[in-house]
C-alpha cells in the first residue's frame, strides 16, 4: 500500500473539514478524487502531504507515518497546486531548477531532468522565456512540470486544468495518461467529471469531509444501476418547478442546469407522466432517458451537481 488514510478527522475551529476520512492507494494507481467545493478535497491532500496537522486518525505514506515532519515522505511527493505557483519573473528553466534544488538534486541531474520534463510538458524551446510571456495553458504545464522535476513516487494534482483552453486541457490529460502508463501513482482532483473518467483507474467521491463512495467507474455506476435518468429540456426553467419535482414521492434527485432538468427516479416506477404534467407549462423541448454515467453517480450520492459548483 502506497498511501493509507485511516479515519482522519480535521477541524478548523468548529468546522469539521475531514470527518472520518479514509482512503487507500496502491502503487501505480490513478485515483480520481471528486467532490463539490468545500467537500474537503484540498484539506485531505494537504494532510497527506503533511502541510496541516490532523486531529485524529492516521496517515501512512510509503509505509511511514505522516507527522508533518517526515522529510522522506515529502521528498517523494510531487504536488501540483490548484493555483499556478511559479515565479513569473524567472525563466521556465530557473523555475524548474529551483524546485529541483529544494529536493536536494545535484546540478547535473537537474540539468538532465529539466530537458526530460520540458519534453513531457511540451515546453522545449520555451524554457528560457519567462512565464509572464506564456499562455495560461503553458503556465499550467510548467506548474505541473515543477512538481514532476524530482521524479516523485506519488503525484498529487489539485485541479490541474482550472481556467485553461480546451487544447491545453487535452494536452495535460494526454500526458497524465502517459504518466499513468509509465507507472506513476497519481491522485487527481477535478471538478470536471469527464477528466476523472478519462484518467482515473479508481474514483473516490467526497462530500462533507468524508469519502461517501469509492470504486472503479463500472463499480460506481453499478451502484445506481437500478435508477433511471431522465433529462427534460424546457423553454423556460424555474427553481419553483424543480422544487415541485423534488416533492414527487418517486423522484430521488433533481438538478437544474440551464434549461435542462436532470431527474433521478427508481427503475420500474412510472413517473414520467407526473413529470410532464409539472413541466408542461414550461414549454417542453426534449425528453430523454439515458444510461447512468459518473455525473449521475455523483448526483445520486451527493444530491449535488458538480458543474453547478464550478459555476457558483
Amino acid at each position, binding site marked *: 500500500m502506497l498511501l493509507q488514510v485511516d479515519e482522519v478527522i480535521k477541524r478548523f475551529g468548529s468546522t469539521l473539514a475531514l470527518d472520518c476520512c479514509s482512503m487507500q492507494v496502491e502503487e501505480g494507481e490513478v485515483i480520481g478524487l471528486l467532490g463539490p467545493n468545500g467537500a474537503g478535497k484540498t484539506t485531505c491532500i494537504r494532510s497527506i502531504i503533511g*502541510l496541516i496537522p490532523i486531529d485524529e486518525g492516521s496517515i501512512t505514506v510509503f509505509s511511514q507515518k505522516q507527522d508533518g515532519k517526515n*522529510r522522506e515522505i515529502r521528498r517523494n511527493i510531487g*504536488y501540483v*497546486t490548484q493555483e499556478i*505557483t511559479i515565479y513569473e519573473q524567472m525563466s521556465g528553466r530557473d523555475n524548474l531548477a529551483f524546485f529541483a534544488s*529544494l529536493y536536494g538534486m545535484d546540478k547535473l541531474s537537474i540539468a538532465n531532468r529539466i530537458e526530460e520534463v520540458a519534453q513531457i510538458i511540451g515546453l522545449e524551446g520555451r524554457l528560457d522565456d519567462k512565464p509572464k510571456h506564456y499562455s495560461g495553458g503553458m503556465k499550467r504545464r510548467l506548474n505541473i512540470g515543477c*512538481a514532476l522535476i524530482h521524479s516523485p513516487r506519488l503525484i498529487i494534482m489539485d485541479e490541474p486544468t482550472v481556467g485553461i483552453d480546451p487544447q491545453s486541457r487535452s494536452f495535460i490529460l494526454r500526458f497524465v495518461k502517459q504518466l499513468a502508463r509509465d507507472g506513476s501513482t497519481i491522485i487527481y482532483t477535478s471538478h470536471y467529471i469527464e477528466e476523472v473518467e478519462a484518467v482515473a483507474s479508481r474514483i473516490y467521491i467526497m462530500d462533507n469531509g468524508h469519502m461517501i463512495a469509492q470504486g472503479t467507474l463500472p463499480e460506481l455506476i453499478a451502484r445506481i444501476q437500478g435508477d433511471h435518468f431522465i433529462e427534460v429540456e424546457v423553454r423556460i426553467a424555474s427553481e419553483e418547478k424543480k422544487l415541485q419535482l423534488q416533492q414527487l414521492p418517486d423522484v430521488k434527485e433533481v438538478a437544474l442546469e440551464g434549461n435542462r432538468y436532470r431527474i433521478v427516479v427508481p427503475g420500474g416506477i412510472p413517473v414520467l407522466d407526473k413529470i410532464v404534467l409539472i413541466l408542461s407549462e414550461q414549454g417542453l423541448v426534449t425528453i430523454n432517458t439515458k444510461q447512468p454515467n459518473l455525473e449521475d453517480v455523483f448526483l445520486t450520492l451527493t444530491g449535488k451537481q458538480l458543474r453547478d459548483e464550478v459555476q457558483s
Partner: protein
Amino acid sequence: MIAFQLKRSSRDLVGHTVLILFPLALIFFFDYLYKNVNIETGMGMGGQSPITALVIGFALTFQIYGSAISFETLAEDLYSPMHDRIFSSPVEMRSIILSILVSSTLVSFLQTAILLVFSSIILGASFPSLPFVLLVLLVSVVFNQLFGTVLLLLTGGVKTANMVTTIYGSIVPMTVGLYFPLPKGEFFRLLRMYGSPMSLANTASLAVMEGQIRLFIICLAVLLLLIAVLFFCLQPLIRRISI
C-alpha cells in the same frame, strides 16, 4: 538556492532604480542647498564635508526602505499559495528564509555601494577609512533586512510591514538631523547620535572617518547586539509559522 534568490531579487528593476536614483537626486538637491543657501546640516559631521555626511545619511535612509526587498520576497513565498508548493518539498522553512535574507542583504548592500561610487565620482564625496565605512553600512543593511523580516513574520502581512518601515524610514532620518538641524541640547545630541539603529550606524560611519575608533566600536557593537536580538526573535517566529 541563494543564487536563485539573488537572481530573483535582481529582477526588480523598478525597485532598484528607485532605491538608487531617488537618494542620488536627494543628495544632489541637499548638496545644492548647502552650497548655495546659507543653512546648516544637522548631521553633526565633525570634520567631514556636507556631501559625505549626506551620502551616508541617505544611504542609511534608503537601506530602511530596502528592507522591503526581503520582506516582499518572503511574503510571496510564505503568505501566498506558493507556501504549499515550497513546503510540500523537504526544504526547511529556515533555509528559505535565510537564503532570502542573505540575497536581499547582498542586493541592498550593492545598492548602497553603487550610491557611494556615484557620489564619489559625480559629486566628489570622499570616504576616509572606506573599508570600515562599508563594514558599518553592511551591518546596517543586515539590521534593516532582519528588522523587515521580523516585522513581516510578527504581523503576518506585507501591508503592515510596508507601513511600519515607511513611517520608520520617514521619521528616523529626521532624528539624525538629515533634513534639518535638531534643536541644541544634550537630549537631541544623544537622539542624533544614539537614538535609533540608523543614528548608531551614522555615528559609527562618521566616527571611523574621523578616527574616533572608540565611538566607532561602541556604536558598531550596539548595532551587532541589536542584530543578535532580532536573530533570536526570528527563531520562535519561524517555528510559529512552520507546522
